[in-house]
């Protein structure tokens, strides 16, 4: 059973149960829940709440861990809020092995740094990409597209190249 001191907040949204835990105790919370029977980490992701006036959020980045108990079956969503540049949190890849790629993806797209991850590199975007595309302050359509007229290589006349 998860220590009640770990649970900051809990509730049910759209029939989904969730609890909020402090970011620095995330590994304790996930280990305790795994012992409780939530043995599958369905996914791990991040939500950027930059300028979100609809609700009150303690921090900009919300990390979401969706857990499942295959025997009952029951789902539980675990949330935690972090701030900072870059935002940092402990890696959970050794508790839930599928978190390995999910953490790389969250690092790639949101710039969240997972301390203790064995190889935190970009996974979906090219290795030399600058910026983290799923942040809300990253514009859609802001990048130059190869072979388009804006792309500088194709703007250079052949005699100057």
């Amino acid at each position, binding site marked *: 059973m998860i220590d009640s001191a770990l649970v900051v907040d809990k509730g049910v949204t759209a029939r989904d149960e969730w609890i909020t835990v402090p970011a620095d105790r995330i590994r304790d919370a996930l280990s305790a829940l795994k012992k409780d029977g939530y043995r*599958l*980490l369905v996914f791990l992701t991040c939500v950027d709440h930059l300028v*979100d006036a609809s609700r009150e959020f303690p921090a900009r980045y919300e990390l979401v861990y969706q857990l499942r108990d295959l025997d009952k079956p029951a789902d539980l969503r675990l949330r935690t809020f972090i701030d900072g540049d870059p935002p940092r949190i402990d890696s959970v890849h050794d508790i839930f092995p599928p978190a390995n790629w999910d953490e790389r993806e969250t690092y790639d797209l949101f710039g969240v740094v997972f301390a203790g991850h064995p190889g935190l590199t970009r996974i979906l975007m090219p290795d030399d990409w600058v910026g983290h595309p799923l942040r809300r302050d990253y514009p*859609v359509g802001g990048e130059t597209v190869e072979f388009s007229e804006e792309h500088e290589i194709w703007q250079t006349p052949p005699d100057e190249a």
Partner: protein
Amino acid sequence: MIESPGVTVTRTGEHGAFGGELLTVNFGPHHPSTHGVLRLIVDLDGEQIKRVEPVIGYLHTGIEKQMEALRWQQGVVVTDRHDYLSPPINNLAYALAVEKLMGVEVPPRANALRVIMSELTRLSSHLVWMGTSGLELGAMSMLMYCFRERDLIMDLNEEISGFRMHTSYIRPGGVMADATPRFLEMLDKFIREMPGHVDEYEDLLTMNPIWRSRTIGIGVLPAEDAKVLGATGPMLRGSGVAWDLRKAIPYSGYENYDFEVAVSNDSDCYGRYLVRIKEMREAVKILRQALDKLPDGPVNVDDRKMLPPPREELETSMEAVIHHFKLFTEGYSVPPGDAYVAVESGRGENGCYIVSDGTHKPRRVKFRSASFVNLQALERMALNHMIADMIAIIGTADTVLGDCDR
């Protein structure tokens, strides 16, 4: 290390069992057997695989970012494109998530049509899998047979939605249009013929000595490892775990259909093949029940704030014109909060997690794709096998790289 794709480099300092050095070989990304654009960095001792590192992202199209810039009803079109072998199942995950957050229940006929489209898609996805995997392992005629029946499913898609592949048929609030009488006739004929075709595939593969020697005992994934690695779908059921979201957490009225969960205890490539064959037979069974019990009634929710009014109302009702205008300029808004819905696709658990900030566009849409998670089990399955077995292992894992990279 490897500096660019297509280059083979010998790593020094590591030695294999026969005294030779481990050879690092680049596999893909443009390799016909990688089912998309998958690159693998493989360490070989002779021909034995000692390490596999999948490199993904070649088909990353940023659809999660795109959906943040689209209105809730426009997002459906993008969901089609992520797992391109099962568009209606992706639509369903997204539609169910939006409906869950809005607290909307669709009418029974819409649910039945959703089940019909999901099962047709599952068949079509398994047909593509079987055709291409057969082709890779030397059963060339499989591709012809499988694509013949897949084309019938495409015709059904075209008849009901107007599109052959990216149907966008299932939408938040119901489905695009009611099934035409011709669709029901075509479906009936398809259901009557399909079991015979599945027998044909089995005649070609199940006892085929080449197929059996290429798949039996290859890529063994024990049940406990499959669970720990988070594998879902035929990968998990092929390891003897009877976990199917349609039974465990039913959605769209799957609890009303009588079908069995396909399981095989073989845990190898052949077991995963048997699971898919069984699933095709069960899909036909579900289709028959859905068609026979197809309820009458509307196929969309009666909510003018969510779906446009019928064409004839626009000429007589001012209110209908206002609803129509609002819907196509601003769209509808979803109450603040988040919801997750998981559906069983041909590859495993394809889920959709949405976050709304109360506006007419999503704050965040996350697709949980089965291929992305299942691909992490590749190294576990391929270790100490021959490099040629890699083809069988990638094939029966049935990863779709569009689904994996999103």
